């Protein structure tokens, strides 16, 4: 059973001025997150990503549709019941949102106190979490004495304090430099692997998705326009907006400007062939080309690795009699994706 299931969920905000139309932040979204997923949600600014996760822990009420968390419908719950649900969902933020008037220790203890844990339980759990995030020596420090990466690690410890099954991460690494981003992402991976915590990761950076997500949903103007396992979406994005996101990290697809240069430099017909592991091997494709007597040159390309599975895009310039080239394109198109680009 899905841990989080959104069905036909819409969220509108009142118009910013009295005359305007209401803002549709989330538009008829369906989404299922299975236990153990690291579910990435990507989209441009204003796409509705933050709103979407804030619906999941009911920080905002949905306008219509159904939201189930752990099999329980939350859209009809009272505020008091919702507080119970929120105790079982951790959340981390782009700006960390630590309590500046509290020490690291007190920050992590806070949700435990809210949950009504005893003093001894709090002390034991906080110590355990400080160890897990590697900040045992910072327990008595205040947040303003920590680096960004350390602050986010405190944020993660605090979000995990009540042992939630679900963690929501809203742009959790967007305020960090690339190296610290990797550290925090590694920590999130451990949270997922070692504690089995399901994570929903919001980001506008495809490499965040690439490094930790198992599934991804692409959002645009309040809608989920494409979703599925990361490997599928990365290796074969269907939607133009998804394709743009994928192009920011996937190597091997020439941009229009690069294509223009390629066309100038090489005569013949230019095609891009896309492989996914499990498809026919490159060798088989090259063999077909040789057999057809079509001369080919590799002009652009790259092989990508997503969670141990490879896929790639190779752009070739093909020279030979038109009929032969047409025939060979048809033959290899039976084995791999072929797009004629010039």
């Amino acid at each position, binding site marked *: 059973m899905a841990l989080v299931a959104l069905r036909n969920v819409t969220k509108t905000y009142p118009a910013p001025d009295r005359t305007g139309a209401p803002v549709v932040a989330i538009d008829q979204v369906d989404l299922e997150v299975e236990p153990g997923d690291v579910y990435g949600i990507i989209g441009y600014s204003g796409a509705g990503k933050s709103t979407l996760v804030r619906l999941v822990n009911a920080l905002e009420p949905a306008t219509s549709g159904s939201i189930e968390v752990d099999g329980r419908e939350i859209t009809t719950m009272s505020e008091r019941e919702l507080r119970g649900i929120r105790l079982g969902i951790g*959340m981390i*933020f782009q700006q960390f*949102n*630590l309590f500046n*008037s509290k020490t690291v220790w007190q920050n992590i203890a806070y949700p435990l106190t809210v949950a009504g844990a005893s003093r001894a339980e709090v002390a034991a759990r906080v110590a355990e979490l400080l160890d897990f995030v590697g900040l045992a020596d910072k327990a008595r420090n205040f947040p303003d004495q920590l680096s960004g990466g350390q602050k986010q690690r405190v944020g993660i410890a605090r979000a995990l304090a009540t042992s939630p099954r679900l963690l929501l991460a809203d742009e959790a690494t967007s305020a960090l430099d690339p190296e610290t981003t990797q550290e925090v992402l590694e920590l999130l991976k451990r949270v997922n692997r070692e504690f089995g915590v399901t994570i929903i990761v919001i980001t506008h950076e495809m490499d965040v998705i690439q490094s930790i997500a198992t599934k991804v949903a692409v959002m645009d103007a309040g809608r989920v326009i494409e979703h599925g396992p990361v490997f599928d979406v990365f290796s074969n994005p269907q939607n133009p907006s998804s394709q743009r996101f994928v192009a920011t990290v996937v190597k091997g697809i020439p941009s229009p400007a690069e294509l223009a240069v390629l066309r100038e430099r090489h005569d013949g017909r230019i095609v891009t062939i896309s492989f996914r592991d499990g498809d026919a091997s490159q060798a088989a494709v090259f063999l077909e080309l040789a057999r057809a007597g079509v001369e080919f040159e590799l002009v652009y390309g790259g092989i990508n690795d997503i969670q141990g599975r490879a896929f790639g895009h190779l752009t070739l310039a093909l020279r030979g009699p038109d009929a032969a080239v047409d025939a060979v394109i048809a033959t290899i198109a039976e084995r791999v994706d072929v797009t004629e680009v010039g």
Partner: protein
Amino acid sequence: MDRLFELQSEFWVAAVETLYMVALTLLIGGAAGLLLGIVLYMTRPGSLLSNAPVFTIVNVIINFFRPIPFIIFIAAVQPLSRLVIGTGIGNNALIFALSLAASFAIARIVEQNLLTVSPGVIEAARSMGAGPLRILRTVVLPEALGPLVLGYTFVLVALVDMTAVAGFIGGGGLGNFALVYGYRQFEPAVTWAAVLLIVVFVQIVQFVGNWLARKVLRR
């Protein structure tokens, strides 16, 4: 100068009266103002316990009374003072008027300082399942404590000023002392003695306030 020496005991009585009025006003007006400020903060649209009618009523009342000049305010609330504490004159009536005026001013200062707490931090507390009153008590007030201390310091200094004004319309304290023995009897030394003591009060208050705020903010 000799005159000042003769008036020594009156001078110290006046000083104690000023302290008494300021302290009691701070206690009553400070508490009422804190409460009103919290009500404003909690009930404003989009806040933790947003409640448009309550917010509007409190907001209008404060906006109505706040701009009234203090010296007129004292006269205006005299009937109310008679009703509530049984007298319209003397130090206690003055404390009543001062507390009322101070609570409106403090309400605004409290509201403004609470509003500086980042919405993200409140959202974090909400995401942990904390309720509105718990968030107020354990997040909003502690996070705003530094600026609140500075706000109260500001009010305390203003109160010393207001008690002195009150001397003109029958209250006791250093304002009255300066007026009766200094100004009316053409004794600048006496006036200046009162002024100096007020300056010393203000300096001490400001110093302690700054020190406390620094300690709270750990800076």
